[in-house]
Protein backbone atom coordinates (compact mmCIF):
# COMPACT_ATOMS: atom_id res chain seq x y z
CA UNK A 1 0.00 0.00 0.00
CA UNK A 2 1.12 3.52 -0.67
CA UNK A 3 1.54 6.03 2.13
CA UNK A 4 -1.30 8.27 0.98
CA UNK A 5 -3.59 5.27 0.79
CA UNK A 6 -2.56 4.18 4.28
CA UNK A 7 -3.17 7.65 5.64
CA UNK A 8 -6.62 7.72 4.07
CA UNK A 9 -7.54 4.38 5.61
CA UNK A 10 -6.21 5.43 9.04
CA UNK A 11 -8.18 8.68 8.95
CA UNK A 12 -11.26 6.74 7.89
CA UNK A 13 -10.91 4.42 10.88
CA UNK A 14 -10.31 7.37 13.19
CA UNK A 15 -13.49 9.11 11.98
CA UNK A 16 -15.46 5.91 12.55
CA UNK A 17 -13.94 5.61 16.03
CA UNK A 18 -14.84 9.23 16.77
CA UNK A 19 -18.43 8.74 15.65
CA UNK A 20 -19.03 5.41 17.41
CA UNK A 21 -20.25 6.96 20.68
CA UNK A 22 -23.11 8.60 18.75
CA UNK A 23 -24.35 5.11 18.02
CA UNK A 24 -23.94 3.73 21.53
CA UNK A 25 -24.29 6.76 23.78
CA UNK A 26 -27.53 5.54 25.31
CA UNK A 27 -26.02 2.24 26.33
CA UNK A 28 -23.49 2.44 29.17
CA UNK A 29 -22.48 -1.22 28.67
CA UNK A 30 -21.53 -0.66 25.05
CA UNK A 31 -19.61 2.45 25.99
CA UNK A 32 -17.51 0.74 28.64
CA UNK A 33 -16.98 -2.12 26.20
CA UNK A 34 -15.66 0.30 23.58
CA UNK A 35 -13.48 1.99 26.18
CA UNK A 36 -12.09 -1.38 27.30
CA UNK A 37 -11.27 -2.34 23.72
CA UNK A 38 -9.45 0.96 23.18
CA UNK A 39 -7.68 0.49 26.54
CA UNK A 40 -6.38 -2.90 25.40
CA UNK A 41 -5.47 -1.30 22.10
CA UNK A 42 -3.27 1.25 23.88
CA UNK A 43 -1.63 -1.39 26.08
CA UNK A 44 -0.87 -3.78 23.25
CA UNK A 45 0.27 -1.00 20.91
CA UNK A 46 2.70 0.17 23.59
CA UNK A 47 3.76 -3.45 24.18
CA UNK A 48 4.59 -3.71 20.51
CA UNK A 49 7.59 -1.43 21.06
CA UNK A 50 9.33 -3.65 23.59
CA UNK A 51 7.76 -7.00 22.68
CA UNK A 52 7.07 -6.82 18.99
CA UNK A 53 10.00 -4.75 17.78
CA UNK A 54 12.76 -5.36 20.34
CA UNK A 55 11.67 -8.99 20.83
CA UNK A 56 11.74 -8.81 24.63
CA UNK A 57 8.71 -10.75 25.78
CA UNK A 58 7.60 -8.41 28.53
CA UNK A 59 4.89 -9.79 30.80
CA UNK A 60 4.84 -6.85 33.22
CA UNK A 61 2.20 -4.58 31.67
CA UNK A 62 0.17 -4.93 34.87
CA UNK A 63 3.10 -3.62 36.91
CA UNK A 64 3.36 -0.35 34.98
CA UNK A 65 -0.41 -0.06 34.76
CA UNK A 66 -0.72 -0.42 38.52
CA UNK A 67 2.10 2.03 39.25
CA UNK A 68 0.41 4.63 37.06
CA UNK A 69 -2.97 3.99 38.70
CA UNK A 70 -1.59 4.18 42.24
CA UNK A 71 0.52 7.29 41.58
CA UNK A 72 -2.23 9.37 40.06
CA UNK A 73 -4.93 7.90 42.33
CA UNK A 74 -2.95 8.62 45.48
CA UNK A 75 -2.10 12.16 44.32
CA UNK A 76 -5.79 12.83 43.72
CA UNK A 77 -7.07 11.27 46.95
CA UNK A 78 -4.40 12.65 49.28
CA UNK A 79 -3.57 16.07 47.88
CA UNK A 80 -6.36 16.71 45.38
CA UNK A 81 -3.86 16.97 42.53
CA UNK A 82 -5.50 16.74 39.12
CA UNK A 83 -5.00 13.46 37.22
CA UNK A 84 -3.72 15.50 34.28
CA UNK A 85 -0.63 16.08 36.39
CA UNK A 86 -0.99 12.65 37.98
CA UNK A 87 -0.86 11.08 34.56
CA UNK A 88 2.59 12.48 33.88
CA UNK A 89 3.67 11.59 37.41
CA UNK A 90 2.31 8.06 36.93
CA UNK A 91 4.13 7.73 33.65
CA UNK A 92 7.34 8.93 35.26
CA UNK A 93 7.04 6.55 38.22
CA UNK A 94 6.47 3.67 35.83
CA UNK A 95 9.45 4.83 33.79
CA UNK A 96 11.72 5.06 36.83
CA UNK A 97 10.66 1.60 37.88
CA UNK A 98 11.30 0.31 34.37
CA UNK A 99 14.81 1.79 34.45
CA UNK A 100 15.49 0.35 37.90
CA UNK A 101 14.41 -3.08 36.71
CA UNK A 102 15.53 -2.96 33.12
CA UNK A 103 19.03 -1.70 33.72
CA UNK A 104 20.26 -4.72 35.70
CA UNK A 105 18.17 -7.13 33.60
CA UNK A 106 19.74 -5.98 30.36
CA UNK A 107 23.12 -5.49 32.01
CA UNK A 108 23.21 -9.16 33.01
CA UNK A 109 22.04 -10.30 29.58
CA UNK A 110 18.79 -11.77 30.77
CA UNK A 111 16.87 -12.73 27.69
CA UNK A 112 14.04 -14.66 26.22
CA UNK A 113 12.27 -16.95 28.61
CA UNK A 114 14.11 -15.69 31.67
CA UNK A 115 13.28 -12.10 30.86
CA UNK A 116 9.64 -13.09 30.36
CA UNK A 117 9.55 -14.95 33.66
CA UNK A 118 11.24 -12.27 35.70
CA UNK A 119 8.89 -9.64 34.31
CA UNK A 120 5.92 -11.87 35.14
CA UNK A 121 7.29 -12.20 38.67
CA UNK A 122 7.49 -8.39 38.95
CA UNK A 123 3.73 -8.05 38.69
CA UNK A 124 3.23 -10.49 41.54
CA UNK A 125 5.92 -8.80 43.62
CA UNK A 126 4.32 -5.39 43.21
CA UNK A 127 0.88 -6.73 44.05
CA UNK A 128 2.12 -8.23 47.30
CA UNK A 129 4.15 -5.13 48.15
CA UNK A 130 1.15 -2.88 47.65
CA UNK A 131 -1.06 -5.24 49.64
CA UNK A 132 1.39 -5.03 52.52
CA UNK A 133 2.04 -1.30 52.18
CA UNK A 134 -0.92 -0.08 54.21
CA UNK A 135 -0.33 3.68 53.81
CA UNK A 136 -0.69 3.62 50.05
CA UNK A 137 -2.32 0.31 49.16
CA UNK A 138 -3.66 -2.25 51.56
CA UNK A 139 -6.44 -4.76 51.04
CA UNK A 140 -9.27 -2.20 51.03
CA UNK A 141 -10.23 -0.28 47.89
CA UNK A 142 -9.49 3.42 47.95
CA UNK A 143 -12.16 5.38 46.12
CA UNK A 144 -11.50 8.41 44.00
CA UNK A 145 -13.76 11.42 44.69
CA UNK A 146 -17.07 11.22 42.88
CA UNK A 147 -18.05 13.93 40.40
CA UNK A 148 -20.67 13.76 37.68
CA UNK A 149 -18.57 15.89 35.37
CA UNK A 150 -15.26 17.33 36.44
CA UNK A 151 -12.44 17.88 34.02
CA UNK A 152 -10.15 18.80 36.90
CA UNK A 153 -10.72 15.51 38.69
CA UNK A 154 -11.07 13.60 35.43
CA UNK A 155 -14.20 12.00 36.86
CA UNK A 156 -17.33 11.65 34.77
CA UNK A 157 -20.60 9.86 35.32
CA UNK A 158 -20.65 8.82 31.67
CA UNK A 159 -18.07 6.64 29.93
CA UNK A 160 -18.04 8.77 26.78
CA UNK A 161 -15.36 11.26 27.95
CA UNK A 162 -13.14 8.36 29.02
CA UNK A 163 -13.60 6.81 25.61
CA UNK A 164 -12.35 9.96 23.91
CA UNK A 165 -9.41 10.35 26.30
CA UNK A 166 -8.43 6.73 25.74
CA UNK A 167 -8.82 7.18 21.99
CA UNK A 168 -6.50 10.18 22.11
CA UNK A 169 -3.97 8.08 23.95
CA UNK A 170 -4.33 5.34 21.37
CA UNK A 171 -3.63 7.77 18.54
CA UNK A 172 -0.52 8.96 20.39
CA UNK A 173 0.62 5.39 20.99
CA UNK A 174 0.14 4.53 17.31
CA UNK A 175 2.01 7.63 16.17
CA UNK A 176 4.86 6.84 18.55
CA UNK A 177 4.93 3.32 17.16
CA UNK A 178 5.01 4.51 13.58
CA UNK A 179 7.64 7.12 14.33
CA UNK A 180 9.90 4.55 16.02
CA UNK A 181 9.37 2.11 13.22
CA UNK A 182 10.58 4.68 10.69
CA UNK A 183 13.60 5.99 12.56
CA UNK A 184 16.92 4.44 13.37
CA UNK A 185 15.68 3.29 16.77
CA UNK A 186 13.06 1.13 15.09
CA UNK A 187 15.54 -0.57 12.79
CA UNK A 188 17.86 -1.20 15.73
CA UNK A 189 15.01 -2.68 17.75
CA UNK A 190 13.85 -4.87 14.88
CA UNK A 191 17.38 -6.14 14.39
CA UNK A 192 17.58 -6.93 18.10
CA UNK A 193 14.26 -8.74 17.94
CA UNK A 194 15.47 -10.74 14.96
CA UNK A 195 18.87 -11.81 16.22
CA UNK A 196 20.35 -10.07 19.20
CA UNK A 197 23.86 -11.50 18.86
CA UNK A 198 24.12 -10.61 15.19
CA UNK A 199 22.86 -7.08 15.89
CA UNK A 200 25.39 -6.61 18.67
CA UNK A 201 28.22 -7.80 16.46
CA UNK A 202 27.18 -5.20 13.90
CA UNK A 203 27.49 -2.50 16.56
CA UNK A 204 23.97 -2.07 17.91
CA UNK A 205 24.17 -1.19 21.59
CA UNK A 206 21.62 -3.75 22.72
CA UNK A 207 21.43 -2.63 26.33
CA UNK A 208 20.82 1.03 25.56
CA UNK A 209 18.20 0.45 22.89
CA UNK A 210 16.29 -2.24 24.76
CA UNK A 211 16.19 0.05 27.76
CA UNK A 212 14.92 2.88 25.60
CA UNK A 213 12.14 0.69 24.22
CA UNK A 214 11.23 -0.45 27.72
CA UNK A 215 11.08 3.14 28.96
CA UNK A 216 8.79 4.32 26.17
CA UNK A 217 6.51 1.35 26.75
CA UNK A 218 6.43 1.84 30.52
CA UNK A 219 5.66 5.55 30.18
CA UNK A 220 2.66 4.95 27.92
CA UNK A 221 1.34 2.13 30.10
CA UNK A 222 1.84 4.28 33.22
CA UNK A 223 -0.29 7.07 31.72
CA UNK A 224 -2.90 4.49 30.75
CA UNK A 225 -2.90 3.30 34.34
CA UNK A 226 -3.75 6.78 35.60
CA UNK A 227 -6.77 6.95 33.31
CA UNK A 228 -7.64 3.37 34.24
CA UNK A 229 -7.89 4.44 37.89
CA UNK A 230 -10.22 7.34 37.03
CA UNK A 231 -12.29 5.13 34.74
CA UNK A 232 -13.02 2.53 37.40
CA UNK A 233 -13.10 5.04 40.25
CA UNK A 234 -10.92 3.16 42.74
CA UNK A 235 -7.44 1.84 43.25
CA UNK A 236 -6.67 -1.56 44.68
CA UNK A 237 -3.57 -3.79 44.47
CA UNK A 238 -5.51 -6.06 42.13
CA UNK A 239 -4.59 -3.71 39.24
CA UNK A 240 -1.20 -5.39 39.41
CA UNK A 241 -2.87 -8.13 37.46
CA UNK A 242 -1.09 -11.11 35.96
CA UNK A 243 -4.00 -12.04 33.68
CA UNK A 244 -3.98 -8.56 32.09
CA UNK A 245 -0.20 -8.68 31.66
CA UNK A 246 -0.33 -12.11 30.03
CA UNK A 247 -3.22 -11.06 27.82
CA UNK A 248 -1.48 -7.92 26.59
CA UNK A 249 1.53 -9.97 25.56
CA UNK A 250 -0.48 -12.71 23.90
CA UNK A 251 -2.60 -10.17 21.97
CA UNK A 252 0.62 -8.50 20.87
CA UNK A 253 1.96 -11.83 19.65
CA UNK A 254 -1.11 -13.01 17.78
CA UNK A 255 -1.59 -9.51 16.34
CA UNK A 256 1.72 -9.61 14.53
CA UNK A 257 5.03 -8.85 16.18
CA UNK A 258 6.53 -5.51 15.22
CA UNK A 259 3.72 -4.35 12.94
CA UNK A 260 2.44 -1.01 14.31
CA UNK A 261 -1.27 -1.72 13.83
CA UNK A 262 -1.09 -5.49 14.45
CA UNK A 263 -1.65 -5.55 18.21
CA UNK A 264 -4.46 -3.01 17.87
CA UNK A 265 -6.10 -5.24 15.30
CA UNK A 266 -5.86 -8.24 17.62
CA UNK A 267 -7.27 -6.23 20.53
CA UNK A 268 -10.22 -4.94 18.52
CA UNK A 269 -11.11 -8.34 17.09
CA UNK A 270 -10.31 -10.62 20.01
CA UNK A 271 -11.33 -8.45 22.95
CA UNK A 272 -14.68 -7.66 21.37
CA UNK A 273 -15.13 -11.35 20.54
CA UNK A 274 -14.31 -12.24 24.13
CA UNK A 275 -16.74 -9.69 25.51
CA UNK A 276 -19.41 -10.78 23.03
CA UNK A 277 -18.97 -14.37 24.19
CA UNK A 278 -19.05 -13.28 27.81
CA UNK A 279 -22.28 -11.36 27.25
CA UNK A 280 -23.98 -14.12 25.26
CA UNK A 281 -22.94 -17.30 27.08
CA UNK A 282 -21.42 -16.00 30.30
CA UNK A 283 -24.83 -16.15 31.95
CA UNK A 284 -25.32 -19.87 31.46
CA UNK A 285 -21.84 -21.17 31.99
CA UNK A 286 -19.38 -18.93 33.74
CA UNK A 287 -15.87 -19.02 32.21
CA UNK A 288 -16.92 -20.89 29.08
CA UNK A 289 -16.19 -17.71 27.16
CA UNK A 290 -12.67 -17.73 28.56
CA UNK A 291 -12.13 -21.33 27.44
CA UNK A 292 -13.29 -20.55 23.90
CA UNK A 293 -11.16 -17.41 23.86
CA UNK A 294 -8.12 -19.42 24.96
CA UNK A 295 -8.70 -22.00 22.24
CA UNK A 296 -8.92 -19.23 19.63
CA UNK A 297 -5.64 -17.75 20.87
CA UNK A 298 -3.92 -21.15 20.77
CA UNK A 299 -5.19 -21.87 17.27
CA UNK A 300 -4.05 -18.49 15.92
CA UNK A 301 -0.64 -18.80 17.60
CA UNK A 302 -0.21 -22.34 16.26
CA UNK A 303 -1.37 -21.87 12.69
CA UNK A 304 -0.64 -18.20 12.06
CA UNK A 305 2.53 -17.64 14.11
CA UNK A 306 3.28 -14.45 12.18
CA UNK A 307 0.05 -12.92 13.34
CA UNK A 308 -3.32 -11.58 12.31
CA UNK A 309 -1.87 -8.49 10.64
CA UNK A 310 0.17 -10.64 8.27
CA UNK A 311 -2.91 -12.75 7.59
CA UNK A 312 -4.87 -9.64 6.62
CA UNK A 313 -2.01 -8.33 4.49
CA UNK A 314 -1.96 -11.67 2.66
CA UNK A 315 -5.70 -11.57 2.10
CA UNK A 316 -5.44 -7.98 0.84
CA UNK A 317 -2.63 -8.94 -1.54
CA UNK A 318 -4.66 -11.87 -2.84
CA UNK A 319 -7.74 -9.69 -3.44
CA UNK A 320 -5.58 -7.22 -5.32
CA UNK A 321 -4.08 -9.98 -7.39
CA UNK A 322 -7.53 -11.30 -8.25
CA UNK A 323 -8.80 -7.80 -9.06
CA UNK A 324 -5.83 -6.91 -11.23
CA UNK A 325 -6.04 -10.18 -13.12
CA UNK A 326 -9.75 -9.51 -13.69
CA UNK A 327 -8.86 -6.06 -15.00
CA UNK A 328 -6.26 -7.62 -17.23
CA UNK A 329 -8.89 -9.86 -18.79
CA UNK A 330 -11.29 -7.00 -19.50
CA UNK A 331 -8.48 -5.06 -21.10
CA UNK A 332 -7.80 -7.85 -23.50
Amino acid at each position, binding site marked *: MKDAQKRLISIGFLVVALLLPLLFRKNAYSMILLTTIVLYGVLTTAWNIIGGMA*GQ*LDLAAGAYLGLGAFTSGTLLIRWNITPWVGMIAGGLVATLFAIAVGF*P*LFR*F*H*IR*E*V*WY*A*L*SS*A*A*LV*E*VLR*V*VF*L*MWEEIGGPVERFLPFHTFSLYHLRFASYIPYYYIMLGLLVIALLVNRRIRRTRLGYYLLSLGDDEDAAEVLGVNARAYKLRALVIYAFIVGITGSIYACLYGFIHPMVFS*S*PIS*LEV*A*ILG*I*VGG*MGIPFGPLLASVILVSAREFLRASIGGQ*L*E*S*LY*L*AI*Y*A*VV*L*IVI*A*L*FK*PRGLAVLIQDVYARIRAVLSSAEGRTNL
Partner: protein
Amino acid sequence: MSTVIQNLLNGAMMGFIYALIALGLSIIFGVMNIVNFAHGDFVMLSMYFTFWVGSLWSIDAFATPVITFPLLFLFGILVYFLIIEGTLRQKYVTQIAVTVGLLTLLRALAQIVWKAQPRALPYSLIQGSLDIGPVTILLSRLVSAGVSLVAILLVYLFFTKTWQGRAIRAASDDLDAASLMGVNYRWVYAFSFGLGSALTAIAGGLLMSFQQVDPTMGLRFGLLSWCILALTGLGSIPGLLISGVIVGSAESLAMSLWDPRARSLIIYLIFVLVLWLRPRGLFGRK
Protein backbone atom coordinates in the same frame (compact mmCIF):
# COMPACT_ATOMS: atom_id res chain seq x y z
CA MET B 1 15.07 -20.08 67.94
CA SER B 2 12.81 -23.09 68.01
CA THR B 3 10.34 -21.33 65.69
CA VAL B 4 13.16 -20.83 63.21
CA ILE B 5 14.12 -24.50 63.31
CA GLN B 6 10.48 -25.52 63.16
CA ASN B 7 9.88 -23.36 60.09
CA LEU B 8 13.06 -24.45 58.43
CA LEU B 9 11.96 -28.06 58.84
CA ASN B 10 8.45 -27.40 57.57
CA GLY B 11 9.81 -25.45 54.63
CA ALA B 12 12.36 -28.11 53.81
CA MET B 13 9.70 -30.80 53.75
CA MET B 14 7.58 -28.60 51.49
CA GLY B 15 10.67 -28.03 49.39
CA PHE B 16 10.83 -31.72 48.48
CA ILE B 17 7.38 -31.44 46.89
CA TYR B 18 8.44 -28.26 45.08
CA ALA B 19 11.51 -30.09 43.81
CA LEU B 20 9.26 -32.83 42.45
CA ILE B 21 7.15 -30.26 40.58
CA ALA B 22 10.25 -28.54 39.26
CA LEU B 23 11.66 -31.89 38.15
CA GLY B 24 8.70 -32.28 35.79
CA LEU B 25 9.37 -28.84 34.35
CA SER B 26 13.08 -29.55 34.16
CA ILE B 27 12.44 -32.65 32.06
CA ILE B 28 10.17 -30.75 29.69
CA PHE B 29 12.47 -27.73 29.38
CA GLY B 30 15.72 -29.66 29.47
CA VAL B 31 14.89 -32.39 27.00
CA MET B 32 12.97 -30.56 24.31
CA ASN B 33 13.68 -26.94 25.18
CA ILE B 34 9.96 -26.21 25.38
CA VAL B 35 8.99 -23.21 27.44
CA ASN B 36 5.94 -24.44 29.27
CA PHE B 37 4.19 -21.61 31.06
CA ALA B 38 1.29 -23.86 31.95
CA HIS B 39 3.25 -26.22 34.19
CA GLY B 40 1.79 -24.73 37.36
CA ASP B 41 -1.67 -25.24 35.94
CA PHE B 42 -0.84 -28.89 35.40
CA VAL B 43 -0.26 -29.01 39.17
CA MET B 44 -3.59 -27.28 39.71
CA LEU B 45 -5.25 -29.77 37.39
CA SER B 46 -3.75 -32.77 39.15
CA MET B 47 -4.88 -31.39 42.49
CA TYR B 48 -8.42 -31.23 41.11
CA PHE B 49 -8.11 -34.75 39.71
CA THR B 50 -6.94 -35.82 43.15
CA PHE B 51 -9.97 -34.12 44.63
CA TRP B 52 -12.22 -35.89 42.13
CA VAL B 53 -10.74 -39.34 42.54
CA GLY B 54 -10.42 -38.91 46.28
CA SER B 55 -13.98 -37.78 46.92
CA LEU B 56 -15.62 -39.99 44.31
CA TRP B 57 -14.19 -43.28 45.50
CA SER B 58 -13.14 -42.05 48.95
CA ILE B 59 -9.49 -42.84 48.34
CA ASP B 60 -6.88 -41.33 50.60
CA ALA B 61 -5.00 -38.42 49.03
CA PHE B 62 -1.72 -40.29 49.33
CA ALA B 63 -3.09 -43.19 47.28
CA THR B 64 -4.65 -41.15 44.48
CA PRO B 65 -1.50 -40.92 42.32
CA VAL B 66 -2.07 -44.59 41.46
CA ILE B 67 -4.98 -43.33 39.34
CA THR B 68 -3.98 -39.75 38.59
CA PHE B 69 -0.43 -40.57 37.51
CA PRO B 70 -1.45 -42.47 34.36
CA LEU B 71 -4.23 -39.93 33.81
CA LEU B 72 -1.82 -37.00 33.79
CA PHE B 73 0.65 -39.00 31.70
CA LEU B 74 -1.99 -39.49 29.01
CA PHE B 75 -3.03 -35.87 29.34
CA GLY B 76 0.56 -34.77 28.82
CA ILE B 77 0.93 -36.92 25.71
CA LEU B 78 -2.35 -35.56 24.38
CA VAL B 79 -1.25 -31.97 24.97
CA TYR B 80 2.08 -32.74 23.34
CA PHE B 81 0.60 -34.08 20.12
CA LEU B 82 -2.25 -31.56 19.93
CA ILE B 83 -0.41 -28.38 20.80
CA ILE B 84 3.24 -28.61 21.68
CA GLU B 85 4.55 -30.50 18.66
CA GLY B 86 3.40 -27.70 16.35
CA THR B 87 5.57 -25.20 18.21
CA LEU B 88 8.82 -27.19 18.26
CA ARG B 89 10.29 -25.43 15.25
CA GLN B 90 8.83 -22.03 16.13
CA LYS B 91 10.40 -19.18 18.02
CA TYR B 92 10.16 -19.30 21.78
CA VAL B 93 7.66 -16.43 21.60
CA THR B 94 5.14 -18.66 19.88
CA GLN B 95 5.71 -21.36 22.49
CA ILE B 96 5.02 -18.88 25.25
CA ALA B 97 1.90 -17.60 23.47
CA VAL B 98 0.62 -21.15 23.03
CA THR B 99 1.35 -22.27 26.58
CA VAL B 100 -0.09 -19.07 28.05
CA GLY B 101 -3.20 -19.86 26.01
CA LEU B 102 -3.13 -23.36 27.50
CA LEU B 103 -2.81 -21.87 30.98
CA THR B 104 -5.89 -19.71 30.38
CA LEU B 105 -7.76 -22.67 28.96
CA LEU B 106 -6.97 -24.98 31.89
CA ARG B 107 -7.92 -22.29 34.37
CA ALA B 108 -11.23 -21.62 32.59
CA LEU B 109 -11.99 -25.35 32.36
CA ALA B 110 -11.28 -25.78 36.07
CA GLN B 111 -13.69 -22.94 36.79
CA ILE B 112 -16.34 -24.53 34.61
CA VAL B 113 -16.02 -28.02 36.04
CA TRP B 114 -15.24 -27.34 39.69
CA LYS B 115 -16.58 -23.77 40.08
CA ALA B 116 -14.55 -20.87 41.40
CA GLN B 117 -14.34 -22.07 44.97
CA PRO B 118 -11.59 -23.80 46.92
CA ARG B 119 -11.92 -27.56 47.18
CA ALA B 120 -10.31 -29.85 49.71
CA LEU B 121 -10.37 -33.53 50.61
CA PRO B 122 -11.36 -34.88 54.01
CA TYR B 123 -8.42 -35.47 56.32
CA SER B 124 -5.95 -38.07 55.23
CA LEU B 125 -5.49 -41.31 57.14
CA ILE B 126 -1.93 -40.31 57.86
CA GLN B 127 -2.32 -38.01 60.83
CA GLY B 128 -0.48 -37.11 63.96
CA SER B 129 2.89 -35.69 64.68
CA LEU B 130 6.31 -36.52 66.01
CA ASP B 131 7.80 -34.44 68.81
CA ILE B 132 11.55 -34.17 68.62
CA GLY B 133 12.83 -31.86 71.30
CA PRO B 134 11.30 -28.42 70.74
CA VAL B 135 10.05 -29.10 67.23
CA THR B 136 6.97 -30.91 65.99
CA ILE B 137 6.92 -32.73 62.68
CA LEU B 138 3.56 -33.35 61.08
CA LEU B 139 3.42 -36.91 59.82
CA SER B 140 1.56 -35.97 56.64
CA ARG B 141 4.31 -33.52 55.72
CA LEU B 142 6.99 -36.05 56.53
CA VAL B 143 5.37 -38.75 54.43
CA SER B 144 4.90 -36.23 51.58
CA ALA B 145 8.55 -35.33 51.68
CA GLY B 146 9.49 -39.02 51.74
CA VAL B 147 7.26 -39.88 48.80
CA SER B 148 8.67 -36.95 46.80
CA LEU B 149 12.18 -38.08 47.56
CA VAL B 150 11.45 -41.63 46.43
CA ALA B 151 9.78 -40.36 43.26
CA ILE B 152 12.71 -38.11 42.44
CA LEU B 153 15.11 -40.99 43.11
CA LEU B 154 13.15 -43.27 40.80
CA VAL B 155 13.25 -40.68 38.01
CA TYR B 156 16.98 -40.31 38.60
CA LEU B 157 17.48 -44.06 38.32
CA PHE B 158 15.30 -44.14 35.22
CA PHE B 159 17.45 -41.52 33.51
CA THR B 160 20.76 -43.09 34.47
CA LYS B 161 20.12 -46.83 34.41
CA THR B 162 17.55 -47.68 31.77
CA TRP B 163 17.94 -47.66 28.01
CA GLN B 164 14.89 -45.40 27.55
CA GLY B 165 16.22 -42.90 30.03
CA ARG B 166 19.58 -42.82 28.33
CA ALA B 167 17.86 -42.37 24.97
CA ILE B 168 16.04 -39.32 26.30
CA ARG B 169 19.23 -37.86 27.66
CA ALA B 170 20.98 -38.55 24.37
CA ALA B 171 18.17 -36.80 22.49
CA SER B 172 18.45 -33.79 24.76
CA ASP B 173 22.20 -33.59 24.20
CA ASP B 174 22.24 -34.01 20.44
CA LEU B 175 18.98 -34.68 18.71
CA ASP B 176 20.45 -35.41 15.29
CA ALA B 177 23.04 -37.87 16.55
CA ALA B 178 20.45 -39.62 18.71
CA SER B 179 18.08 -39.87 15.74
CA LEU B 180 20.84 -41.49 13.71
CA MET B 181 21.34 -44.03 16.51
CA GLY B 182 17.71 -45.06 16.17
CA VAL B 183 16.03 -42.90 18.79
CA ASN B 184 12.54 -41.90 17.65
CA TYR B 185 12.45 -38.27 18.75
CA ARG B 186 8.68 -37.90 18.47
CA TRP B 187 8.12 -40.60 21.03
CA VAL B 188 10.98 -39.42 23.19
CA TYR B 189 9.46 -35.97 23.27
CA ALA B 190 5.92 -37.19 23.84
CA PHE B 191 7.12 -39.51 26.59
CA SER B 192 9.13 -36.75 28.28
CA PHE B 193 6.22 -34.37 28.17
CA GLY B 194 3.96 -37.08 29.56
CA LEU B 195 6.43 -37.91 32.32
CA GLY B 196 6.88 -34.23 33.19
CA SER B 197 3.11 -33.82 33.52
CA ALA B 198 2.65 -37.11 35.35
CA LEU B 199 5.10 -36.07 38.05
CA THR B 200 2.73 -33.23 38.92
CA ALA B 201 0.11 -35.89 39.66
CA ILE B 202 2.21 -37.21 42.53
CA ALA B 203 2.85 -33.68 43.75
CA GLY B 204 -0.86 -32.89 43.44
CA GLY B 205 -1.79 -35.89 45.57
CA LEU B 206 0.73 -34.95 48.23
CA LEU B 207 -0.33 -31.31 48.28
CA MET B 208 -4.00 -32.24 48.58
CA SER B 209 -3.27 -34.18 51.76
CA PHE B 210 -2.89 -30.92 53.68
CA GLN B 211 -4.01 -28.13 51.35
CA GLN B 212 -6.96 -26.96 49.27
CA VAL B 213 -7.06 -26.14 45.59
CA ASP B 214 -8.56 -23.25 43.63
CA PRO B 215 -8.47 -22.49 39.90
CA THR B 216 -6.09 -19.54 40.11
CA MET B 217 -3.27 -21.17 42.05
CA GLY B 218 -1.52 -22.47 38.94
CA LEU B 219 0.54 -19.38 38.17
CA ARG B 220 2.11 -19.46 41.63
CA PHE B 221 3.29 -23.04 41.18
CA GLY B 222 4.44 -22.24 37.66
CA LEU B 223 6.62 -19.32 38.69
CA LEU B 224 7.79 -21.25 41.72
CA SER B 225 9.01 -24.18 39.68
CA TRP B 226 10.71 -21.86 37.19
CA CYS B 227 12.39 -20.20 40.17
CA ILE B 228 13.70 -23.54 41.40
CA LEU B 229 14.83 -24.39 37.89
CA ALA B 230 16.67 -21.06 37.62
CA LEU B 231 18.29 -21.70 40.97
CA THR B 232 19.43 -25.17 39.94
CA GLY B 233 20.43 -24.78 36.36
CA LEU B 234 19.81 -27.58 33.92
CA GLY B 235 20.68 -31.22 34.33
CA SER B 236 21.25 -31.71 38.03
CA ILE B 237 18.63 -33.73 39.89
CA PRO B 238 20.34 -33.52 43.34
CA GLY B 239 20.64 -29.77 42.72
CA LEU B 240 16.87 -29.59 42.24
CA LEU B 241 16.36 -31.10 45.69
CA ILE B 242 18.69 -28.58 47.32
CA SER B 243 17.08 -25.66 45.48
CA GLY B 244 13.63 -26.93 46.41
CA VAL B 245 14.65 -27.01 50.06
CA ILE B 246 16.15 -23.51 49.82
CA VAL B 247 12.99 -22.10 48.28
CA GLY B 248 10.69 -23.99 50.64
CA SER B 249 12.50 -22.89 53.78
CA ALA B 250 12.86 -19.30 52.59
CA GLU B 251 9.12 -19.23 51.97
CA SER B 252 8.31 -20.71 55.33
CA LEU B 253 10.69 -18.40 57.21
CA ALA B 254 9.31 -15.33 55.42
CA MET B 255 5.80 -16.35 56.39
CA SER B 256 6.57 -16.80 60.06
CA LEU B 257 9.15 -14.12 60.73
CA TRP B 258 8.07 -11.36 58.36
CA ASP B 259 4.51 -11.43 57.10
CA PRO B 260 2.32 -14.28 55.89
CA ARG B 261 1.60 -12.29 52.74
CA ALA B 262 5.30 -12.10 51.93
CA ARG B 263 5.20 -15.78 51.00
CA SER B 264 5.44 -15.34 47.25
CA LEU B 265 7.45 -12.13 47.55
CA ILE B 266 10.50 -13.94 48.89
CA ILE B 267 10.35 -16.53 46.11
CA TYR B 268 10.29 -13.90 43.39
CA LEU B 269 13.08 -11.96 45.06
CA ILE B 270 15.24 -15.10 45.07
CA PHE B 271 14.27 -15.68 41.46
CA VAL B 272 15.26 -12.20 40.29
CA LEU B 273 18.48 -12.21 42.31
CA VAL B 274 19.52 -15.60 40.94
CA LEU B 275 18.84 -14.48 37.38
CA TRP B 276 21.00 -11.41 37.91
CA LEU B 277 23.84 -13.01 39.78
CA ARG B 278 24.01 -16.63 38.64
CA PRO B 279 22.22 -17.00 35.31
CA ARG B 280 23.46 -20.59 34.95
CA GLY B 281 22.12 -21.58 38.34
CA LEU B 282 23.99 -22.99 41.28
CA PHE B 283 24.36 -26.53 39.99
CA GLY B 284 24.06 -26.23 36.22
CA ARG B 285 26.10 -28.18 33.72
CA LYS B 286 28.37 -26.35 31.28
